[in-house]
């Protein structure tokens, strides 16, 4: 669906040039929700912008929907871009136009018939849950609502790919979760391939099936989310994993509090964790042999919500579905 072959991007400066991307190879399959994670300055923004040629790569090939973007004329490129939706961290809505007009714009550019526009915009606004906001202006909306408008606008021309540029980074955790759910629904319902760049680990954890970790303009690890984060190799990857799983706790203080069909719950004074089978981190007692830690959080929150046994059941279920659990 999306393929980047040995993509380089160099910004020529007066004194020295800066390499933003150095030899990116990436393959996103049809139907993927592909996450690219990295710290600021890793080159994520440049990467996502090469996929719709907002940034022209200095060398290498970008293939989207079987089209090599570099070989297209500017007219063909504009047509190709209509099949690639994009949403932004700052939403980039027109403040001077209503929600309806904002969503209608891609259709107006296409010269679509007025009645058809009205129908399609209504359909899109209903899909994103803003059917009652058609006549509002963006300044009257919350951040989450603005992003929903951005999403509706990006879907207007029925794209096959949706690019999300830090789409949830300006939102609070609860709103982030609802936007991520919406993205997942778009992926399932319309079978739209989604590429997300983010610096937030929980975005990857919550909806991505595949992930690439970026550092200094390079992809240092990529693959299935469970494989990459279940067994992180590079330091950066480990750092990201530790933002959702606190593995720096000294091993000595862990005690196993319960086991159940090969799944163990363990805890110390601060944390409670669920581990599945075979080995994971050094923090675990050696005899536990856990493959993946699926969940860790302070025990008081755990107790308030679920008993250890129900946590274990939940973990087992998630393991069967090969999906990380989200509580």
């Amino acid at each position, binding site marked *: 669906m999306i393929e980047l072959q040995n993509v380089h991007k160099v910004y020529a400066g007066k004194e020295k040039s800066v390499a933003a991307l150095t030899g990116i190879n990436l393959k996103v399959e049809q139907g993927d929700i592909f996450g690219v994670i990295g710290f600021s300055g890793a080159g994520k923004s440049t990467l996502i912008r090469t996929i*719709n040629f*907002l940034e022209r790569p200095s060398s290498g090939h970008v293939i989207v929907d079987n089209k090599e973007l570099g070989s297209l004329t500017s007219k063909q*490129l*504009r*047509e*190709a*871009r*209509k099949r*690639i939706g*994009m949403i*932004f961290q*700052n939403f*980039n809505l*027109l*403040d*001077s*136009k209503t929600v309806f007009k904002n969503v209608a*714009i*891609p259709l*107006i*550019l296409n010269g679509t018939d007025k009645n058809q526009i009205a129908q399609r915009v209504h359909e899109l606004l209903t899909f994103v849950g803003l059917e009652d906001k058609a006549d509002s*202006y963006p*300044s*009257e909306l919350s951040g989450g609502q603005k992003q929903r408008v951005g999403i509706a*606008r990006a879907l207007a*021309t029925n794209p096959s790919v949706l*690019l999300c540029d830090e789409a949830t980074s300006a939102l609070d955790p609860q709103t982030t979760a609802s936007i991520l759910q919406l993205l997942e629904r778009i992926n399932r319902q319309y079978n739209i391939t989604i590429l997300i760049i983010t610096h937030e680990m929980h975005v990857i954890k919550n909806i991505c099936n595949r992930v690439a970790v970026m550092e200094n303009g390079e992809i240092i690890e990529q693959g299935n989310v469970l494989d990459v984060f279940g067994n992180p190799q590079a330091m950066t990857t480990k750092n990201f994993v530790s933002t959702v799983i606190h593995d720096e706790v000294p091993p000595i203080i862990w005690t196993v509090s319960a086991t159940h069909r090969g799944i163990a719950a363990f805890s110390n004074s601060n944390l409670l964790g669920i581990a599945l089978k075979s080995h994971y981190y050094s923090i675990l007692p050696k005899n536990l042999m856990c493959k993946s830690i699926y969940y860790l959080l302070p025990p008081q929150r755990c107790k308030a919500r679920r008993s250890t046994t129900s946590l274990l059941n939940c973990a087992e279920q998630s393991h069967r579905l090969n999906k990380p659990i989200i509580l």
Partner: protein
Amino acid sequence: MNNAITSDQVIQAIQETLQMVSISLLVGALIGIPLGLLLVLTRKGGILKNSAIFSVLNNIINIVRSLPFIILLVAIVPFTKFIVGSSIGTNAAIVPLIVYIAPYIARLVENSVLEVDQGIVEAAEAMGATPLQIIWHFILPEALSSLILSLTTATIGLIGATAMAGTVGGGGIGDLAISYGYERFNTVVIVITVIILIILVQGIQTLGNVLARKIRRQ
């Protein structure tokens, strides 16, 4: 009204001023707005980046803008003669007024358009919009309220310049103040013309502000 000037003269002067301001504003805007847009589009990082066009345009605008209006007025007399066939009168004053205001409007438009969030242009490009569509559907609507304020500033600048048009027999309120007030030591005429100018400028600024606010919404 007063023994030096008649109310008919005042009304005629106001008419002449309004005529000079409106025609030169209209033509100046027709020239200045596209030039201002062109400055933004062709600058470094613009969607139609072209450093040759940008630097030529930029320099011409700077050169014209360096000339005080009174000097511009006499410097381009041959050009004015070529265009309107005469270098005296209200019509003859309009030519230098346009030459004066068009580059000024271009600069103001450039500033207004640069205020438009670059992200909006990026979103437009990502949607596959053509450069003309980007200008028409994205940049102009987003810059509109700021553009109106810019044109308001330009209009007030023009009123100031028309006063000097009296030197070429352009007429108008400024001319009235100089020939009947200053040169005949008639303070009353000066006071009347100053009051008229203040009301005119206040009125235009208020109109501009109201329009801009209406468009900006919330």
